[in-house]
């Protein structure tokens, strides 16, 4: 089995889903002959035809609404937004329609659909191409928000998202689109959509993260291990609904928790996790829950981008502070 990148895993999952279910459709800008700006849909139009892999005009609000109509009619559209920075016109459709249609018709109509978008910084992209706004979506009732952090999880989670009967916002951390690679079995096995993944076990501190920050977080765990500190690393993966049970169970054992995310600190999903720990895990805590996050600033253009992104050093500094509590 050869090693696969995250973006290749996305393509494998899309192809698998389209082959097994003819109601699965792909829509978006340049997803057809061009194969998408990151090539996530490369080759799919020639394999499945232009009816099922459709280039749309530059109408970002339309695609999401189109998917609502297609979903209500029994299709499973997968909509690609080129970058998260261009997804905001679709928020109207997601909040007002996709997340509500099942509830407001008491289940008469529903719209299974997946909205995919690359997100996050660190690739020196132009303005509006690097933000991490997942918290906006995690606040919306009636949808799921999923972020893979490895090729294998991207494959399994995307298959699950496409097969799920409800709308899913699927955000792809583009900084790790092409590395690291890992072996991905194209076996059609979906990953659970509402469980965190414990990607490294440890007894001294729980590090909670998602998306591309898995790289810095795992590196910090390696450094800590060399110093005799065993960090448990949790990839949240499904930000909504949030699996607090796995996080609480880990912190019950470690007593310490550091949350790492690239998105701005205030109102981030890290705040929701910290609140969950305060609600139901306080008696197990040996130290304050800390967050290492992006600043509450506008995402800087590439020259200052690296100062914005949480680093392994910032994670280590915070973990050491947390460990200093007796």
């Amino acid at each position, binding site marked *: 089995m050869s090693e696969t990148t995250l973006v290749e895993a996305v393509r494998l999952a899309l192809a698998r889903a389209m082959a097994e279910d003819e109601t699965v*459709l792909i829509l978006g800008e340049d997803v057809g002959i061009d194969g998408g700006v990151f090539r996530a849909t490369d080759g799919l139009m020639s394999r499945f035809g232009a*009816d099922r892999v459709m280039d*749309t*005009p530059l*109408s970002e*609000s*339309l695609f*999401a*609404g*189109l*998917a*609502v*109509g*297609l*979903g*209500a*009619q*029994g*299709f499973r*559209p997968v909509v690609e937004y080129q970058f998260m920075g261009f997804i905001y*016109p679709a928020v*109207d*459709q997601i909040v*007002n*329609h996709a997340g509500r249609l*099942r*509830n*407001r*018709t*008491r*289940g*008469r*109509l*529903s719209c299974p659909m997946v909205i995919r978008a690359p997100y996050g910084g660190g690739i020196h992209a132009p303005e509006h191409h690097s933000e991490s706004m997942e918290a906006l979506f995690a606040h919306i*009732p*009636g949808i799921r928000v999923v972020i893979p952090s490895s090729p294998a999880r991207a494959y399994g989670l995307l298959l699950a998202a496409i097969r*799920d*009967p*409800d709308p899913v916002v699927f955000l792809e951390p583009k900084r790790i689109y092409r590395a690291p690679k890992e072996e991905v079995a194209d076996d059609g096995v979906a990953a659970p959509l*509402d469980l965190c993944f414990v990607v490294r076990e440890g007894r001294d501190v729980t590090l909670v993260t998602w998306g591309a920050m898995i790289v810095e977080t795992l590196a910090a765990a390696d450094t800590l291990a060399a110093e005799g500190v065993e960090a448990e690393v949790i990839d949240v993966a499904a930000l909504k*609904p*949030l*699996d*607090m*049970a796995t996080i609480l169970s880990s912190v019950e054992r470690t007593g310490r928790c550091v949350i790492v995310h690239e998105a701005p600190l205030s109102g981030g999903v890290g705040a929701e996790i910290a609140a969950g720990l305060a609600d139901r895990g306080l008696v197990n805590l040996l130290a304050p829950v800390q967050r290492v996050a992006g600043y509450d600033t506008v995402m800087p253009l590439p020259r200052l981008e690296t100062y914005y992104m949480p680093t392994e050093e910032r994670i280590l500094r915070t973990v050491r502070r947390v460990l200093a509590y007796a």
Partner: protein
Amino acid sequence: MTQVASFTIEHTQFLDPQGRRTQTPPAFAQDPQALIGLYKAMVLTRTFDAKAVALQRTGRLGTYASSLGQEAVPVGAAAAMRAEDVFLPSFREQGAQILRGVQMVEILLYWGGDERGSDFAGPREDFPICVPVGTHAPHAVGVARAFQLRGEARVAVCIFGDGATSRGDVYEAMNFAGVHRLPVVFVVNNNQWAISVPRTRQTAAETLAQKAVAAGIPGVQVDGNDVIAVRHVVAAAIERARADKGPTLVEALTYRLSDHTTADDAGRYRDDAEVSAHWKEEPIARLRQHLSDTGHWTKAEEEALITDCAARIEAAASEYLATPPLPPTAMFDHLYAVLPAALAEQRAELEEATEP
């Protein structure tokens, strides 16, 4: 200089405001029973609106959007549809919904604050009322694309107001429908007012029908107070779409004789004289005059119709008022296909807090 494109907008009318024929009526309108059917549907709609407003004024219904004076638009459009077509309404198309089999009690439940009002027993694939203006136009395009992909001879019909034509969603939908020649018909209920903003402040375009031109699809205008014209023109657009000839935008010119909704007071921004003038053009009196002048409608029939409409609506209102609310936990029941564990806890909390 060379002229590279040009356009014209056709306007269709069969009955003038006095109910006189302005041209030979279309084939369907040769049958008096067809006209009587349209007339009855419009009267039922107006009577229903009056009852709904009365219920709101007495604290028994939430905010409600009457279609007073615009009944010919939803009734004419729905009459042009087949049962298997899909209707995507805005929030002023109760006349069309009733004609398509949505129960009056369901409409009252919706405006009375109960989601069951959108779980239609009748047209199961029709969309529920859309409150955010124009945001359902992309849904219509999605539904039409589904018909096209499955090779079904069905049409999506979407109605929105004059204000919606200023929205990007409506243009994006028409544009996409044009590119893919989708079986969809967009109908603008141009009632001249978007709450307090008159048509002249909505756009500098001479007609709303011509908004279709930029999207590369036909745009036509119809006298929206002439139900014969609405039915005829919308039917032509629907059959064109069914025959794989693509979408159409139909602008129906009418007038909002009521407030925007029961939460509005139009006296703040428009003259009574303007409204009075438009009462002379409204669709129901026009068709009644025509039917009466041609010997197909009597005073006795009118009285019987009023009695029948009132009885049906009273029955619907009684059923609505007697419907107990859903249990509080119902807000969780259809949020997802299967309630996630995180939400099961919240549901349990609400259940415990509201146990009788």
